[in-house]
């Protein structure tokens, strides 16, 4: 089961990297979103996969039932999902604003902050 998940994680990573190598900011954004999901799956797999016994201590017991899922990766993933979700929504707004303000989504043409033909500093008085 873990091997299968590893393959899936690898697939997700390659898709994400392929998209992020693109020149267009929207595709890069999609790549970032998939990268976040790839990482979540990786965290999930690294906590070992077990049968689906929820890690909840029922009334009258002192410890988890045996074979319960590892709760820590799930907590980590929840945090990571929250963070990547908020980042994604922020980046979405930013990319849209960049498209509006700069009139392009091609990162090669976004040279406003670093103009191509900047003058050299003066060499003397």
């Amino acid at each position, binding site marked *: 089961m873990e091997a299968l998940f590893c393959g899936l994680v690898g697939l997700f990573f390659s898709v994400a990297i392929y998209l992020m190598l693109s020149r267009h900011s929207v595709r890069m954004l999609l790549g970032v979103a998939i990268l976040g999901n790839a990482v979540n799956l990786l965290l999930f797999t690294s906590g070992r996969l077990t049968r689906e016994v929820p890690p909840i201590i029922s009334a009258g017991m002192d410890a988890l039932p045996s074979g319960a899922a590892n709760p820590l990766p799930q907590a980590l993933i929840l945090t990571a999902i*929250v963070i990547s979700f*908020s980042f994604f929504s922020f980046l979405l707004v930013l990319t*849209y604003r960049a498209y509006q303000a700069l009139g392009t989504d091609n990162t090669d043409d976004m040279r406003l902050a670093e103009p191509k033909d900047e003058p050299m500093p003066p060499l003397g008085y």
Partner: protein
Amino acid sequence: MNTLIFRTVAPFLTALMMMFSIFVLLRGHNEPGGGFIGGLIAVSALAIYGIAYGVTAVRRAIWFHPLSIAGFGLALSAISGLLSMLAGVPFMTGLWIYPELFGVQVPLATVMSFDIGVYFVVLGSITSIALTLEERDDD
């Protein structure tokens, strides 16, 4: 999207989802659920209202600015953590009280006020982003 059917149903749907979000928030006390998911449901409720009646109506309906709501939630969560300073236990330790309300014992905890804070943070910040995106569609 602005059909008559949708505009008629939207207020009821919003109210129902709001109530459900509070149910999920309180259920998170001891069972799956909690502040984050409750907050997201509440945001969806407001988003539906916004699609039906426009962003201005939502802003009027929630009265406070969304980011002020998020700030309130953040402060509530931080204070719930700090209360354990008065009890002489480490930060974020859950503190419980069991007051009697109308003959029913109600367990209250800083865990819960923390979760309510999370609810407001999610509600405020995601509503703020959603309203920004919806507003842009209007112009």
